[in-house]
C-alpha cells in the first residue's frame, strides 16, 4: 500500500511539474524577454545576457514614449472590464435566480437564447456593429465596448449562476421567510451569502472574457479614448522602424497579467470554499 501510494505521489508530482512547465513556460519567457534590451532580443537565449538585464521596457511604457498609449489603454481596460463585469453579474444574478427558482413561460427560451448568443461568432457581428456604432455615436466610447462585452459575458454568467443557484436548497429561503424575512431579505441574507462563491467565480470568468477581448477592442475604437490594452499592444512601435517593439510588448503583457493573478489570489478562498456543505443533511 505505502509503496504504491509513494509511487502514485511521485507520478503525480511528475505530471504536475510537466503541466506547470507547459503552462508557465510562455509566461516565463515573456517575463524574461521583458527585461531584455533591444539588442539582446535576438540573442537566442532564454534569459537576458548577464549584466544586460534592463527595466527600460517598463520605463518606456510606464513613464517613457509609449506612456500615453499604454497607461490610457490600461485605464480603459480596467474601467471597461470592471463595469461590464459588474453589470453582467448583477443582471445575471437576478436572471439566474428567476430561472432557478420561478416557473414561468419562456424560461427555456431565455436560456437557449443566451446560449445561442454566446455561440454566435464575434467576428460576424463586428462589421454591422461598427457601422451602427458610428451612426449612433457609440464608436470609440466606453459604452460602445461595454455593450458588446455584456453580450459576451452575460450568457455564460447566466448559465453558471443558474446552475449554482439550483444547488442552493430552497428550504433555506423558505426558512428565512418563516423566520420573518421579506422575499428580498430572504434573498439577500440567506441566498446571496451562499451564492457568493458562485457569484465571484462568475465575476472572474466574466472579467477575463472582457479583459482578454481583442476583436471588439480593435474594431470599435480608434483613439485612446476607449482603446483597451490588447488592442493598444498592436499599436506599439519600436524606437525606429527597423526595431521590433518586442520588449515593450512583453513588459505590457506582464503588467496586464498582474490584475488577473491578483484577482485569483484575492478571491481564491471564495472560489474554492464549498459554503453550502452543512446547509442540509450532511
Amino acid at each position, binding site marked *: 500500500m505505502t509503496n504504491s501510494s509513494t509511487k502514485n505521489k511521485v507520478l503525480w508530482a511528475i505530471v504536475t511539474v510537466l503541466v506547470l512547465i507547459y503552462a508557465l513556460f510562455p509566461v516565463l519567457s515573456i517575463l524574461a524577454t521583458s527585461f531584455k534590451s533591444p539588442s539582446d532580443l535576438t540573442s537566442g537565449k532564454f534569459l537576458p545576457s548577464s549584466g544586460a538585464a534592463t527595466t527600460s521596457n517598463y520605463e518606456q511604457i510606464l513613464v517613457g514614449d509609449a506612456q500615453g498609449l499604454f497607461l490610457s489603454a490600461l485605464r480603459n481596460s480596467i474601467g471597461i472590464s470592471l463595469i461590464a463585469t459588474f453589470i453582467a453579474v448583477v443582471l445575471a444574478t437576478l436572471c439566474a435566480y428567476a430561472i432557478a427558482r420561478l416557473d414561468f413561460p419562456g424560461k427555456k427560451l431565455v436560456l437557449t437564447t443566451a446560449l445561442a448568443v454566446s455561440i454566435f461568432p464575434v467576428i460576424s457581428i463586428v462589421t454591422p456593429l461598427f457601422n451602427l456604432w458610428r451612426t449612433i455615436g457609440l464608436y470609440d466610447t466606453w459604452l460602445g465596448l461595454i455593450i458588446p462585452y455584456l453580450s459576451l459575458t452575460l450568457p455564460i454568467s447566466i448559465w453558471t449562476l443558474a446552475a449554482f443557484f439550483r444547488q442552493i*436548497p430552497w*428550504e*433555506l429561503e*423558505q*426558512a*428565512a*421567510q*418563516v*423566520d*420573518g*424575512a*421579506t422575499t428580498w*431579505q430572504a434573498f439577500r*441574507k*440567506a441566498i446571496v*451569502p*451562499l451564492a457568493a462563491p458562485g457569484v465571484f467565480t462568475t465575476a472572474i470568468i466574466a472579467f477575463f472574457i472582457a479583459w482578454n477581448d481583442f476583436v471588439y477592442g480593435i474594431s470599435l475604437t480608434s483613439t485612446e479614448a476607449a482603446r483597451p490594452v490588447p488592442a493598444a499592444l498592436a499599436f506599439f512601435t519600436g524606437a525606429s522602424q527597423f526595431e521590433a517593439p518586442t520588449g515593450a510588448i512583453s513588459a505590457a503583457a506582464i503588467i496586464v497579467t498582474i490584475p488577473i493573478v491578483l484577482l485569483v489570489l484575492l478571491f481564491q478562498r471564495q472560489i474554492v470554499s464549498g*459554503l*453550502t*456543505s*452543512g*446547509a*442540509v*443533511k*450532511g
Partner: protein
Amino acid sequence: MASITLNHLVKKYGDGFPAVNDVSIDIADGEFIILVGPSGCGKSTLLRMIVGLEDITDGDLLIDGQRVNDKAPRDRNLAMVFQNYALYPHLTVYENIAFPLRLAKGKHSEDQVDKLVTEAAATLELTDHLQRKPANLSGGQRQRVAMGRAIVRQADAFLFDEPLSNLDAKLRGQMRSEISQMQRRLGVTSVYVTHDQTEAMTLGDRVAVLKKGELQQIASPRELYEQPVNLFVAGFIGSPSMNFLPATLEGTTLKTAIGDLQIPEGKAAKAAGKKVVLVGVRPEFFEDAKLVEDHKMSNGSTFTATLTHTEWLGNEQYGYINFDPAPEMRELLNSLARDMDADELRPQVVVTLDAASRIRGGREAEIWLDTRKLHLFDAETGENLTRDAEAGAELTREASEERAEELANAQQSGEGQGHGGGFGSGTSGQAGGSPVDAGPGRAGGATAAGGKHSAG
C-alpha cells in the same frame, strides 16, 4: 401561544388535483397535533399551508380567530423546523439562532438578543457549540439548532416537517422525547408532520390521519388504535398492522379462511345484513390457547391453524398464518395495501404469542382469539361497523385531561418530566392476552417492538 383553526381547507394544484381536500381541524392552544399518513397524502402540503409557504385554494385558516389566508409567512408568527434543518451554513450556531431576532429590527437590543440566544442554547445544550458552523455539527446537533431558531422567537406555534427522518434510529428516539418534553414545558401549540407512527403515537395529543388529501380521523392515539373509524385508519395505525380477514357472517358465527369464529351478539348485530365483512384483528388479540387462563377463555373463540413460521423476540413472538382469500377479496386487500404504501404481500395473518409459547412453524396449533376486541368492516365502504363512538370519545377525553395535567406539571416543575407523551401504550386493554405479565408491562413491550419495526 395560539389556537389554530383549519376550516374546510382545500389545496388544488394547476392540474386541478386536490392535494388537500376539505380538511377541518381545530387545534387548541398548547395542543400537540400530529399529521400522519402515507406519502402523497397531503400532510406536508397542509403544514406548508398553515405556515404560508403554499397558497390556500379554498377554505379559511384562522390563528387565534384571525383569518390569515392572505398573510405572508413572516406575518403569521409561526416557527417551522424543516426536514433538512435549513440552517444557514454561512452563519455560526449563535447567529443561526439569532437570525429571527435580527430580522425583527429594532425589537431587541443586542443584550436582549444575547440573553435569548444564550437561554435557548442552554435549553438545547448547545452552549458549547455556539461559535461553530453548522457544517461541523452532528445531525442531532443541527436538529437542535433548528429547534433553537424556533424557540428563540417565542412564536405562536411550532410546525415540524418530519424533523427526525434524517436521524438514525437511536438518535431519533432521543430527539423524540426531547421534542415532547420541550413542547410540554413551553406549552406551545405544535403541528408535527411524520410518516413514522411511533412518533405519531408517542408525541401527539391528537393524531390526524390523512389519506389522499382527505382527513380520515382525528383522535387521541388510543382512540385511533382501539376505535378506528375505517379500514384505512385501522390498517395504518399499529405495527405490526391489523390483520384483515374476509368473512361471511351467519348468526354469530364468522366463517373465515382460518376457521370459524364465534363473536359476541352485540358485534354480530351491528353487522347484520352484510353478507361479506372484513374482520379486523390486531395481532395481540391472538394467543396460544394453551396459555390462556380458563376464566378468560370464554371471552374469545379458539381455532386451529398451521403457522408457517414464528419469530421469537424475547418479550413476545410473532407467528404467521397464510390464507387464501377469494379473488375479489384479494383485490380488495391489495388495494388496501397500496393505499398504505405497502407492497402487495401474500395474504397472511400475524399473531402475537406469548414468549413462553411452544407453538412452532409447520405444526398444527390451537389459537385463541379475543373476540370482544375485533372490529368488523364493511367490505365495500371500508367503514367500521363495530366502532363504539362513545368509548372512543371517552378515550380522547381522558387523553386531553392527561395532557392538561402534564402541561401543568411540566410548567410547574420548570423542566420537563422524564416521561414524554404518555400515550404510547396503545396496546393496553391487553389484559386478556397474557397470563404471565400484567397488562401495562406487556403493552410497553409491544410498543417498543412496534418502534423497531417502523424504524426498519
